[in-house]
């Protein structure tokens, strides 16, 4: 069966997730065009990690639909999973295995053909060749981040989900990763969904941005259009504007109730 090649890599419709009476995601709908880097922004608890977990199928939605690369993940989840990958600081790799062993295991799970070649290429590109034989648990936080990224790129995913990909990297390493990700996205025409708190990073590499707050999409646009719309200098100010506007609204509601 030929794989569908949709215009949108990702389509989310009325996606809802609640745990008992806590609503983590409230009827969220958005589409992400194929071949772009899309930022998923929001404060802590806004619903970014929940959204990513739902897209990966690690969580089942309470309601709503998800289509990834044309596959309805309720019916066809595994077909989508083999064409995507992810990296997140909330999920680790086995500490006792060496870097090469970890990557070999995941390469097999994703059905990578020339594993040795692929590991060689990723080792070079992400500068992890020299610690391939070291145990993953013995690496620094920055080295682990690069290895996790290598794992996420093993199957040359068409959709790459990245949760805080440069969170624990020094500025030099973080910059190299951003350049590499942009280069990878342009070379492969992959779609990247990037959850980040690093606003300069978002401004630099994202073509589109979805702003989440309290489990809802509150705004959407290119970084430049959002900056212009809010009359701000940069994305950091836009982010603060959106977050604090919510705080002010909550405080005002509190006063009027009192």
């Amino acid at each position, binding site marked *: *069966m030929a794989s569908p090649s949709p215009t949108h890599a990702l389509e989310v419709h009325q996606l809802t997730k609640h*745990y008992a009476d806590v609503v983590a995601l409230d009827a969220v709908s958005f589409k992400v065009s194929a071949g772009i880097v899309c930022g998923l922004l929001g404060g802590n608890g806004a619903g970014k*990690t*929940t959204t990513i*977990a739902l897209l*990966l*199928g*690690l*969580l*089942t939605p309470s309601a709503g639909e998800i289509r990834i690369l044309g596959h309805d993940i309720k019916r*066809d989840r*595994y*077909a989508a*999973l*083999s064409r995507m*990958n*992810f990296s*997140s600081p*909330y*999920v*680790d*790799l*086995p*500490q*006792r*295995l*060496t870097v090469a*062993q970890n990557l*070999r*295991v*995941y390469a*097999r*799970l*994703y*059905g990578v053909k020339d594993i040795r070649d692929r590991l060689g290429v990723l080792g070079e590109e992400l500068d992890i060749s020299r610690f391939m034989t070291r*145990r993953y648990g013995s690496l620094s936080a920055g080295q682990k981040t690069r290895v996790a990224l290598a*794992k996420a790129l093993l199957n040359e995913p068409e959709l790459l989900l990245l949760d805080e990909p440069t969170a624990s990297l020094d500025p030099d390493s973080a910059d190299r990763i951003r350049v590499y990700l942009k280069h990878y996205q342009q070379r492969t025409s992959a779609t990247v969904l990037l959850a980040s708190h690093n606003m300069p990073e978002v401004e630099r590499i994202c073509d589109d941005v979805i702003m989440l707050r309290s489990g809802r999409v509150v705004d959407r646009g290119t970084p430049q259009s959002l900056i212009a719309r809010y009359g701000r200098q940069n994305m950091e100010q836009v982010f603060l504007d959106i977050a604090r506007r919510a705080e002010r609204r909550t405080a005002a509601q509190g006063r009027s109730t009192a």
Partner: protein
Amino acid sequence: MNALPFAFSWYRIGAMVLRYVYVLRSSWPRIIELAYWPTVQMILWGFITQFFVTTSTWLAQASGALLAAVLLWDVLFRGQLGVSVVFFEELYSRNLGHLFASPLRPYELIFALLTISFIRTVIGVGAAACLAIPFYHYSIFSLGLPLLAFFMNLLVLGWSIGLVICALVLRYGLGAESFAWAAIFAVAPVSGIYYPITVLPEWLQSVAYLLPSSHVFEGMRAVLFEQTFRLDLFLHAVVLNMAYLALGIATFLYAFRTARRRGLLLSMGE
């Protein structure tokens, strides 16, 4: 690429077995630990046998009965630990999110766990069984083909219990991991490992025959004392094991679905 809901890939199962072999190989104390307890048990029961064989006419008829029993009991125990403890590795390393966001199916993971359990049990109990030959001049291999039937039946029961323990841990977190070390001992008194089932009170005998292990140990005594392989006991054990294994797999898959619904796959191990 196979997009069927029940696609099954030996390649992915092989990847997971390789992952567990890497863990095993990475630490020589782990390999020694596999054989350590079965060997200690074998040595202890070997001395007990040497003492009782001079005072018990029952044991004098088949002096290997206690040693065979302790080695087969360890097949059940190691078989269960081989599933549950290996699964805990994924929780300790907070790796479940990566595994289940890959094309790996939960039932492929189960198959990999059963495979590595088989390997670990053969290493652990095999070493103790081989050491019993020079230590006590007793070879469990003298049971012949019935040994294979006993081994597989006990291993499968160990797998079923192991999968239920994994399900409990998936549902209740690592707080439930102590079940991995304790659960099997609830089965021990009614399995008739060292004594015939007829020793038990009548009502408990009915319970005992619901366990494949009691049929196996009765069958073992039939081979040792009467030189007869009891096909009826074997078939009872097989049928019960099929039911228990299906129950074990279903419980694991149900716990997995619940974990996905409650968001436990990402928080496990924390």
